């Protein structure tokens, strides 16, 4: 077995899934919304990046920027359609899930109608060189995926730690009622959060399109994986999501080498079920130092 290949794949996948999972996790804990339209945002930003590559420039930064921007716009669109009208109605959790699912279905069909069923491929963003790090052969796209997701995620987390808007988002993640009391507007924060997480989905989409293709339904599987990573890490915990992403990335890379790619989802869900049986609140249950209010 080619261990370096497994490790390289595991790290790359962990970074991409971690990006998705953190987006889902932040949305859930701050807005109380399971964003089923995340796959749609993912696919949409893939097309945004593709259009930029076709009509503006195939420069890696331009394509990635276009993907992130489209993702952010898509996030705000979902927010305006499926969060703002219903967020203070009774039974919002279920309604929100249905509304975002509806946005996702309509959006995916619209993409299919407009762009057609044929998958598009993005130009290679990071060139095609190869380097060896500690004996692990990494291709340029894998290094690029790891570096860009780590850099962008750190930037996002740093922003959430240090800025005022980040403070508002974190406050809403911990106690929405108290956040309202100190004057944090739910709707405005909703737009920030959805734009931010949409941008993360856009990044993940561009990165994953280096291996796969951009298609109208290409977001479904990544969303399911991102959601399960977020669940596994404990919804609402960023650090838990990172650990879960690492675990599931290793699992996915190992499974495709040992058993073959078609068994990936089976072992993945078996692992998630196992973790949730032992830690019902996800991995973050272990990390939670502060006692509950």
């Amino acid at each position, binding site marked *: 077995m080619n261990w370096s290949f497994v490790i390289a794949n595991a790290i790359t996948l962990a970074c991409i899934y971690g990006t998705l999972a953190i987006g889902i996790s932040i949305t859930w804990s701050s807005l109380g919304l399971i964003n089923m339209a995340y796959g749609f945002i993912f696919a949409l930003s893939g097309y945004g990046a593709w259009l930029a590559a076709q009509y503006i420039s195939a420069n890696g930064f331009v394509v990635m920027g276009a993907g992130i921007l489209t993702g952010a716009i898509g996030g705000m669109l979902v927010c305006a359609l499926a969060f703002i009208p219903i967020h*203070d*109605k*009774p039974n919002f959790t279920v309604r929100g899930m249905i509304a975002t699912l509806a946005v996702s279905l309509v959006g995916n069909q619209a993409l299919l109608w407009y762009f057609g069923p044929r998958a598009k491929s993005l130009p290679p963003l990071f060139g095609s060189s190869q380097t060896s790090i500690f004996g692990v052969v990494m291709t340029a796209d894998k290094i690029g995926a790891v570096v860009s997701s780590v850099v962008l995620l750190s930037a996002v987390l740093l922003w959430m730690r240090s800025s*005022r808007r980040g*403070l*508002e988002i*974190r*406050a809403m*993640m*911990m*106690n*929405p*009622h*108290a*956040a*309202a*009391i*100190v*004057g*944090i*507007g*739910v*709707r405005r924060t909703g737009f920030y959060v959805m734009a931010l997480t949409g941008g993360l989905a856009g990044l993940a989409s561009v990165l994953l399109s280096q291996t796969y293709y951009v298609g109208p339904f290409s977001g479904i599987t990544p969303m399911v994986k991102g959601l399960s990573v977020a669940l596994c890490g404990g919804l609402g915990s960023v650090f838990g999501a990172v650990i879960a992403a690492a675990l599931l990335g290793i699992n996915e890379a190992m499974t495709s080498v040992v058993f073959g790619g078609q068994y990936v989802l089976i072992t993945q869900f078996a692992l998630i079920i196992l973790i949730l049986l032992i830690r019902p609140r996800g991995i973050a249950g272990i990390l939670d*130092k*502060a*006692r*509950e*209010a």
Partner: protein
Amino acid sequence: MDHAVPQKKEVLNVKGLSAGYGPMRVIHDLDLIVYSGERVGLVGLNGHGKSSLFLGIAGLTGWQRGSIKLNGVEVGRTRSQGPGRYTHQVVRQGLALIPQGDEIFTGLTVEEHLDSGAFTPRAWRERAERKEHVLKIFPPLRKLMKTAVGRLSGGERRMVSIGRGLMAEASLFLVDEPSLGLAPKIGKGVLDALMSVELGQSAMIIAEQNVALLEGRVDRVIGMHVGKLKGEASASLTFQTRREH
């Protein structure tokens, strides 16, 4: 104005406020006026609407109707749902609500917590001085600034919660049961701190079960019973039923 003494003005003017949750009505056509510089005690039994009155003023009850004027600006509205949807507008008009049972953000540090209370742009710019001010009132918080609030004791949490309210650029402070759930000595200390806050042009309403703690230290005491204000007394607690005016 021809005199130097600051004019006593209405900070809060509530007229015909009704509020409740779903089919339940908790506040019944309530009128209340609070003037600047006033410290008002609100007493009454559990479940008679003290907290709901505060939440109603902040727009956080299930539904509400009636007029609420904060510094002359209307912040009341008739709404059947959407608790909290307009609260940030009320806060911007100068309301600081210090809720019952603290409502803290467990994972934030004390410092971040205080920052989160400075909501208006001006309060945010001045947050360093405001934090100093809060730390003067609650000195024990100084060495806890970097600690997550979820790890504090009940009394310390209460201090953080009140401190967060004091960070706001507010003209009306609503303090809900500051001594609730605390050891008597600590509860008394928290109340002492509240009494030491200089109000200036702002006003403060303190809801409290322990009337003895308020005695002689607030400007007037209002009783609350089944969703209505029932009696008013000066701080000496010689209760008289107020005639309808």
